[in-house]
């Protein structure tokens, strides 16, 4: 251990209580930052998953322009063979074809305008949470059956129950009149009023018959195993699209730009709070190091008289701060990692969270997502601010005059 490092180390322990208090402040803030950032990123992951799994999926194959202007004529031809091909080639069942149209749905008493989705019942369960939200009855079974699932709010509005018949009236792809009578086999309750009152699902085969789709649909929804795989999967999907088809593959960011914006807004507000925490720690370090420099003025005068330049003394003060900062970083990150690891296994919940989460088909606990980034970003920022806060006491040494300093008590 070189002498200057030894000197810096021993200087720190001249006042062990003060040093531990400062390191403790760093440790606590680092631990808190590791846990909070990990929890936050875990929640974002959950937010993205739940938001996308509800309906959108990680990516969709569509006709160009369909995303921004969902006209019925902008179709994907031979959509079921295409989704079969993708499932086969990608070795995944998390792929399902859909078609959609606007229609009037009527019960014996009432009528409402709704969005009708034709889905592949067998595979829709893998790309959407709606099948899992069926509160009464069951989800769609046969691909050509005259069945329908509707939201709880729509059921109330139409004054219908399970087993009731509904009439769908709309326009087919060729502009002709489209009509069908379907039986309610399931009622879902997503907790989101907009979905529950304005969306119905029928089997894709039935949809194609009723709306004269001639084998076409509007989109193929694809889910990746994890969201980080989306970019790579998108490249593979693009490569599998049949030659001559005019199709595009949109990832979730393009399909739901608001989601990332919401996350960015949340990151901004929470990082503002973290910033306050970091600044408080920096002031604690500033206080410690300023005290430490002031009380050693006489000693600094001596070593300057011996030939040390203020610059070297400044480095000594910075080295002392760096040692404290590294201790705070390592211990804080370690404690934060342990706490976060515990909650990443056991989950984190607060009173009443389970009941609320169940209503939205969300898990009852949040699981912090511990990564190198979530583990180190907070402690590194604290460390940088710690070093920044030591600059002032260190720079003060440049103003020190050895004779005046040696007179200090």
């Amino acid at each position: 251990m070189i002498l200057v490092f030894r000197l810096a180390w021993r200087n720190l322990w001249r006042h062990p209580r003060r040093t531990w208090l400062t390191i403790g402040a760093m440790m606590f803030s680092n631990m808190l930052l590791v846990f909070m950032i990990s929890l936050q990123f875990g929640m974002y992951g959950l937010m993205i998953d739940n938001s996308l799994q509800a309906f959108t999926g990680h990516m969709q194959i569509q006709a160009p322009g369909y995303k921004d202007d969902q006209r019925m004529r902008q179709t994907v031809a031979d959509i079921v063979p295409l989704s079969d091909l993708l499932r086969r080639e990608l070795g995944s069942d998390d792929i399902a074809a859909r078609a959609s149209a606007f229609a009037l749905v009527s019960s014996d008493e009432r009528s409402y305008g709704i969005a009708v989705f034709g889905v592949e019942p067998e595979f829709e369960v893998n790309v959407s949470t709606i099948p899992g939200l069926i509160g009464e009855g069951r989800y769609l079974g046969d691909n050509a059956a005259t069945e329908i699932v509707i939201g709880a709010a729509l059921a109330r509005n139409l004054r219908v129950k399970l087993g009731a018949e509904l009439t769908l009236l709309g326009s087919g792809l060729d502009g002709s009149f489209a009509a069908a009578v379907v039986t309610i086999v399931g009622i879902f309750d997503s907790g989101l009023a907009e979905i529950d009152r304005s969306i119905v699902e029928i089997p894709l085969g039935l949809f194609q018959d009723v709306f004269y789709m001639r084998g076409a649909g509007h989109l193929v929804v694809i889910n990746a195993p994890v969201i980080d795989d989306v970019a790579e999967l998108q490249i593979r999907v693009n490569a599998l699209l049949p030659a001559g088809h005019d199709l595009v593959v949109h990832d979730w960011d393009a399909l739901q730009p608001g989601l990332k914006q919401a996350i960015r807004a949340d990151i901004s507000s929470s990082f503002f709070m973290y910033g306050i925490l970091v600044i408080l720690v920096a002031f604690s370090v500033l206080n410690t190091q300023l005290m430490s420099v002031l009380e050693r003025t006489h000693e600094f005068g001596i070593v300057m008289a011996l030939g040390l330049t203020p610059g070297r003394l400044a480095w000594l003060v910075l080295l002392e701060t760096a040692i404290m900062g590294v201790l705070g970083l390592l211990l804080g990150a370690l404690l934060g990692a342990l706490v976060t690891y515990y909650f990443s296994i056991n989950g984190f919940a607060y009173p009443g969270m389970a009941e609320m989460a169940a209503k939205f088909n969300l898990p009852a606990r949040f699981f912090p997502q511990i990564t190198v980034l979530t583990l180190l970003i907070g402690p590194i920022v604290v460390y940088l601010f710690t070093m920044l806060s030591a600059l002032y006491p260190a720079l003060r040494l440049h103003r020190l005059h050895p004779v005046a300093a040696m007179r200090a008590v």
Partner: protein
Amino acid sequence: MTAVRCVDLCKTYRQGDENIKALDHVSIEIDAGGFVCLSAPSGGGKTTLLNAIGGLDKPDSGEVYIAGQRIDNLSKGERANLRLRQIGFVFQAFNLIPVLTARENVEFVMQVQGVPADDRGKKALATLEEVGLAGLEDRLPADMSGGQQQRVAVARAIVSRPALVLADEPTANLDSKTADGLIELFRVLNERHSTTFVIATHDQRVMSYAKRLISMLDGRIVDDIEQNAT
């Protein structure tokens, strides 16, 4: 050869409404290998002169030369470098670094000078032995007597074999026996290594050891005599 030359040094301090002349047109020359005492009552200007010679303080006017090099016009950093390599200091209050052991205190200056670690260790031990502290090298200052601490300070001052050692009231905090031992050590080092010693003091015993005694009063040299040291 001249170790120290001061030409017409003036230095005035402001104390309240009063201007205090700490150095009033002081000129001296000290030969290499000299053993010189600056004697003055408190406020007589001896510490101010010592600080000017050591480059710790700049005179208001006049010139200071160390081994022929003018130093009063050097920058702060250049003067620090000069002190680091050419001048050893011994202070009244020992002024050791409290968290370093005797050996580390002696090594510290050498480390700043860039002396390799092996050389540093050997030189520090040899110098501590030379000042009579063999076996105490791993003690912290707090575990040593005043005399021992002052010897560590002397070891620190001479370990790099500076041509000039400046001592400011080095015996003020020592009992008479320890003070005698310290001055005897100074004299031995002066003779053995031909190191120039300039000691500011008002201790009569220290003055009696000096080969040359410069007396100051109110910032002026009032007497400068060669004497037969006891």
